[in-house]
């Protein structure tokens, strides 16, 4: 085929430009670390990467949510343990008072301590999570849920309990409402009773001189209620512990998901440096030879020899 001089120049120019374009693309991939900087360079990859980025961002937020929830559940665990300890003390006092040798005066002293413990329990029930939210108020947690007056303890929270998503598709229950923890406590006879009322009844019984007691066995019944309240707290504590354990599993599952997502994203989007470096070297050689060919071709002319 006949070649024109201008055509020859054009050809070598175009081959240099083409190689420069390829080289620029490879060097962009190497310096930015990603294979594509806009969707047009890999529409399917960009679509998938966008979804994965969103999933990763959401995992991060779920981790923060889990942190908040863990903090609250740990506080709940402490509060329930503290309440259980107080009830154990009451139980010791009741057993001591059941001893016939104890004087009415000593019994009255125990009653004072029990009333004190009852107030402590109210304050445990009113504990907050450190950000102004009551732990045991259901979803009405802006104020103290338990108030103590002459008529006893009133619960002003509700039965609400939030679910919080802590891993994709896994939602865990927030703290238990105060009614579940303190006011609807199972009794020995299968009914339900306010733990504060149980304590008040025990204190009342101890304040009454032994010979004036209407029912001499009243303490035994109350002690059974106390046992069942302790059992109730233990099972709540176990439930809280189970939720905390699930939280830890969720953290592991988030970590695994994150790793999987990042690996997929990296395969999809990140520059393979070994591949890119090889390509870069090849493209560089190709450009250099194109430049050499162009300069040699341009030197060729019959006119130079005339």
């Amino acid at each position: 085929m006949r070649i024109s001089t201008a055509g020859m120049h054009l050809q070598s120019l175009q081959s240099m430009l083409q190689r420069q374009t390829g080289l620029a693309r490879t060097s962009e991939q190497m310096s930015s670390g990603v294979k594509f900087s806009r969707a047009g360079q890999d529409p399917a990859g960009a679509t998938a990467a966008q979804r994965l980025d969103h999933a990763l961002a959401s995992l991060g937020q779920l981790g923060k949510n889990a942190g908040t929830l863990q903090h609250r559940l740990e506080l709940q665990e402490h509060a329930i343990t503290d309440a259980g300890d107080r009830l154990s003390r009451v139980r010791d006092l009741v057993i001591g008072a059941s001893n016939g040798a104890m004087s009415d005066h000593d019994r009255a002293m125990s009653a004072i301590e029990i009333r004190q413990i009852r107030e402590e329990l109210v304050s445990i029930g009113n504990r907050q999570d450190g950000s102004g939210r009551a732990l045991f108020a259901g979803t009405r947690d802006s104020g103290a849920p338990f108030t103590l007056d002459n008529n006893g303890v009133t619960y002003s929270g509700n039965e609400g309990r939030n679910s919080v998503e802590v891993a994709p598709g896994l939602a865990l229950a927030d703290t238990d409402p105060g009614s579940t923890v303190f006011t609807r406590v199972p009794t020995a006879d299968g009914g339900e009773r306010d733990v504060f009322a149980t304590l008040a009844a025990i204190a009342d019984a101890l304040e009454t001189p032994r010979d004036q007691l209407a029912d001499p066995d009243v303490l035994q019944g109350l002690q059974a209620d106390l046992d069942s309240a302790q059992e109730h707290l233990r099972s709540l504590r176990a439930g809280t512990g189970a939720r905390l354990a699930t939280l830890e599993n969720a953290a592991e599952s988030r970590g695994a998901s994150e790793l999987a997502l990042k690996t997929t994203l990296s395969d999809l989007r990140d520059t393979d440096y070994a591949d890119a470096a090889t390509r870069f070297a090849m493209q560089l050689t190709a450009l250099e030879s194109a430049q050499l060919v162009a300069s040699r071709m341009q030197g060729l002319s019959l006119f130079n020899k005339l």
Partner: protein
Amino acid sequence: MSSLLSTGSSALLAFQRALNTVGHNVANASTPGYSRQRVELEARIGQNSGPGQFGAGVDVARLQRLADGLVLGRQLDSSGEMGRLQQLSGLATRLDMVVSDSVGGLAPPWSEFFGAAEGVTADPTSPAARGALLSAGTQLATRWNQLDRQMDQLDGEVNDRLTAQVAAANRLAGEIAHLNRDIAAAGPNASPDMLDQRDLRLGELAGLVGVETVAQDDGSVNVFTTGGQALVLGARAMELGTVPDPYRNDRLQLSLQGATGQPVPLGSGAVSGEIGGLLEFRERVLDPARAELGRLAVAFAAGANATQRAGVDYNGKPGMDMFELPPPRVDRHAGNSGDASFTSRIGDLGALTGQDLVLRFEAGTWSATRADTGQAVPVTGSGTEADPLRVGGVELVVGGTPASGDRFSLRPTAGAAAGLQMVLDDPYSIAAAAPLEASADAGNVGSATPGASRITDAAAFAGLAGARIEFIDAGHYTIDGGAPIAWEPGQPIRGDGWELDLDGTPAADDSFTITATPPRSADNANARQLAALDELDLLAGGTLDLGTALAQFTGKVGGDARHAGLALEAQTAIDTQVTAERESISGVNLDEEAANLLRYQQAYMAAAQVIATADTLFQSLLGAVRR
């Protein structure tokens, strides 16, 4: 001897011409569009002189221009395609960069918004978490506005480029018409350089609008658009122009001067070249992308607003809309004779496609077609407030009186992305809580527990103090002792302004107590709905969720850019091939010219020698006679 002299001088003359031509070729070796020339030599026939015919020298038969009309045709086709694809690919890539930018795209604030919504679910009463959601929402809405503005700039640029390129095309068409006139007047002696100039202009014109040429007997060529409309007929050029779109003044359409001199609008299919590429980009890439951006904005805002309205805010009040959206856009055709106007609103989110429609009123009935394909779209309803026209997910109430033949452009989601606005500014106005606090009575026997609740009518809900739901048997319930209502599993309990889901199965005599959620509730049920909005199948008749639609949008714009880019690469290879073909026939090779220079120079010197010999012969003859 005189014949030898004339033979020699004919050769001198011929080789002088040939050397001239070589010089002309060398001079134009890098002139764009130049076709190399060659003198064709021909032996001069002598006169019969007994023993035979002795030749009488050489003549220049003609000056030949080495060009191939078929290659020119291919070159024009390729130029048109190159021009079209360069524009299409260049602009589509710019749109792609706008949409899929890792910083300026929709994806980052989108993730931010849903992250902030998740944050509210973990700490529903925290003003910081609520504030973060509001600012993420504002960011997201602003990003939508910015993207639409950037697309609007591209739209404006298409208008500007169209105007500039139409002017350039008109100049070229005028020059071709002039050259046609001169070439026809010169007849067979038309200068090859003039033909080159015409071909060059044809190539440039093809790059702008795409052309087909038909050669005429008088040497002129008629030029047509790829759609067959005449651009140049002999010495007459038809004027290309721009006319405003009949539905909207801000957009220009291409027009061509028709037979009567009036401008006739040209569709994007009628032209190729850069102008065709601009129109195609606008119709096939930019408009659908903008409509889809708008559709996403509409679906997102409508979904977020519906979620807000279903719950109660921190103050215990029914939630207010979070985003404000402009209504679907209806524009009247400039030629309408009736005075009808429309009030529009989004009706069915699932039916919304984002495609632009044309509404037509003919003989008392409304019909609709897609603006791009002309495909019919069903219209129902009569257009009154009670029974609005329903088309493509949009509801329209007609005001005024339409005349038969009136047309309107309906762009359901145009302007939505530009007008999307966050309207809440108080963090406490986020409706994170479910509207009802419900509890099952302690004595219930069935397994039913109260589930999610929603506000269905804010005004009616505002009057709710509390209510009691009693199951009179397993299949019927009453609200506050009212008329029995049949219970269907899976269906909510519907009160006045509210709804409550029951999970599980109720038994006879079970009852539930509900109260309106009080202020300062830490309930997060409604915030969880908002956080899950990106996975809710709102679009395409309830089959497509927002997160997927957003990723598909990015992928679609990227795909358009990629296809245009690949087509351009393929066309570039074809164009290189065609250029090489042309160069092979018409291009000047300097080595070849150098060889010719030597050849003709030597021949010229030899011819001069012939004349010298003739002179010597003559002198010898004279000497002989003198003696």
